[in-house]
């Protein structure tokens, strides 16, 4: 990895985003695992609660109240209504709080129409956890790249829309945490494929222009191993010549054609992906770390896989 890269484990709050299907949740889980292995107290938060992150630790889905799902890792799922409740309890010491039920519904309603209200409750809760220092690192399995901007920009948007009131006074310290590259970072996960790469490049631009959060790293997931160098590929082509293939099949005691064909497929796949990877690297700022995670030829997803990915991530980060 290049020098001068920010150490993801030194941050306090990391948002992990990416296009749907690229393995965003897996990377978030691996980062949490890596931090925990280095003795940190970690909180993971699922924003689009589907219970997928907990599943990567083979734990049952979590709620708003953090629950330990692995040694050193607590996990929660974002629930904006619960976040509002907690917020009101902390900040509004008025008797109305006991009757918050229908009010929460009302706010849910307002939040549906008023942009940023839901987002601010999400980001607010995360910043609160950072400020209170309950954890060394908060890892957020954030919304997909199409939605993350709105979330990260919410405090600023609210600052612009709301001129007075409690929310206004709150956004100032949130912005402070979010804008501090020593505390907060965004990790964009992608795969070396056309759409994910295009979306990542677009995200990079928008993060810079529309938010105060710094992009700390791009993680390229599912990078296929390079089977051959140039000389090896020539030899591979020789082995695929019909006469040679025939000899191999006779010696092996069965047709080696499908075995060779599979390797050809792997080589082609790798090549197409390498082009997208190049396009990604060419389009990103030169000083932005790009971390590569290998394609895992595994049959399932669970703690074992999470640890494997954490190890690869650790190697890329120089641990």
């Amino acid at each position, binding site marked *: 990895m290049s020098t001068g890269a920010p150490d993801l484990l030194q941050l306090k709050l990391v948002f992990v985003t990416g296009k749907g299907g690229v393995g965003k949740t897996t990377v978030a889980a691996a980062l949490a695992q890596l931090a925990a292995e280095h003795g940190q107290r970690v909180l993971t938060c699922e924003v689009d609660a589907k219970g997928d992150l907990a599943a990567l630790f083979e734990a049952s889905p979590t709620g708003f109240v953090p629950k330990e799902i692995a040694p050193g890792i607590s996990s929660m799922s974002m629930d904006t209504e619960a976040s509002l409740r907690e917020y009101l309890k902390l900040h509004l010491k008025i008797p109305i709080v006991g009757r918050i039920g229908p*009010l929460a519904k*009302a706010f849910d309603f307002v939040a549906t129409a008023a942009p940023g209200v839901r987002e601010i409750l999400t980001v607010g809760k995360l910043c609160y956890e950072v400020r209170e220092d309950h954890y060394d690192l908060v890892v957020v399995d954030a919304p997909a790249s199409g939605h993350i901007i709105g979330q990260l920009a919410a405090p600023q948007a609210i600052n612009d829309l709301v001129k*007075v009131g409690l*929310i206004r006074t709150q956004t100032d310290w949130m912005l402070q945490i979010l804008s501090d590259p020593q505390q907060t970072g965004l990790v964009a996960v992608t795969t070396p494929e056309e759409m994910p790469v295009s979306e990542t490049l677009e995200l990079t631009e928008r993060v810079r222009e529309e938010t105060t959060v710094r992009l700390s790293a791009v993680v390229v997931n599912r990078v296929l191993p390079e089977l051959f160098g140039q000389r090896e590929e020539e030899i591979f082509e020789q082995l695929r010549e019909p006469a040679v293939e025939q000899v191999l099949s006779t010696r*092996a005691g069965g047709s080696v054609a499908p075995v060779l064909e*599979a390797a050809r497929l792997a080589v082609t796949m790798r090549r197409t992906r390498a082009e997208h990877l190049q396009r990604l690297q060419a389009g990103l700022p030169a000083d932005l770390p790009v971390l590569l995670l290998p394609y895992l030829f595994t*049959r*399932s997803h669970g703690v074992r896989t999470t640890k494997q990915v954490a190890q690869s991530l650790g190697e890329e980060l120089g641990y």
Partner: protein
Amino acid sequence: MSPRGEAAPKDIAQLLSSKEIAIACGPGGVGKTTTAAAVAAMAVAEQGGRVLVLTVDPAKRLADALGLKGIGNDEVRVEDEVFKRAGVTPRGELWAAMLDTKLSWDDLIRRHAPDEATREQILANPLYQNISGRFVQSHDYIAMERLYEIHSEGKYDLIVVDTPPTRNALDFLDAPQRMADFFSSRLLRWLIVPYRSRLVNVATKPFYQVADRILGTQFLADISEFFILFQSMHEGFVKRADAVTRLLSDRRTTFMVVSTLEATPLREAEFFSAELTARKLHLGAIILNKVLPDYLRSAKTAKLAQSMSDRVDALVEGLSDDPAMAARVLREVAESFLNFGVVARSEAEHQNELKGAPDVLVTVPFFDADIYDMGGLLLLGAQVWE
């Protein structure tokens, strides 16, 4: 054939010949957009008629191939020439359109605003601009709304829809109803009561006390103004949302769930299929993309690859002037087969376990190159067709 002599559609061709709307939905990253375009192209090539593919966010090269330039809501005709270059004479017309959320919202407001003054006030309202431009859930509603609008114009024999990426794959199904509920809600009436009466009304007083302290009076006033304006379009909106909901459950509409055989997307696709069925919506097909070739699953070949890996030196003897490297290459080849075999077999098992599959279950093989032109779309389309 069932005992009563009715044949259920067994392939996409038959399914689509009886439908006017086909909605491609499913988890992110599985190739929904490309699949929708391929199905539409194939329908034009094979069945004819006038077919529209309504897409949300196509890859640039795909958009170029369809002649979609930049943003905009216009429906554009894909030139016959594009088909001919791919070696096909189209039997009908292919049209393509992209969804521009902001423009679609503006259109909607223009249609429903009671008068010009209200219309201009809404379009200029900062909250409205925020909602229509940035607010993510507004995608869901407007996609279905636009579909309704186009369908009701009656210009197309078939409309293939690519659904927007949503937080939850079901959001766009619920969006019309949510929109209707939103405008019918008692809460909306609370928000637009005149400021003075808020503090004396027993029901709304607590709400406003808290809301004022958190959001500030000015922001609340902005919200109120916005809702008061919107209220004027209430009836039109609710009617419209109901009509959109009806269209989704119409017999002429079918859903195609797109997925890959990877565990996570497939789980989402299964959930989605179950939900469609529970809502009595027509689950017409499941399309499984990027399926690894059959030969990777063969246990016999895996055994062969294993034995090859164990004795590469003997196998390459005399076949290369660099036997050491040839042996290394062959070992890589064998190991690579075994690696992909693990994935292929586990994906095959996922397919076996697939629950609630409809009559039409299509698998599309993995393509080792990106699909970005008509030739590629038709190649993919042909696989879906079979």
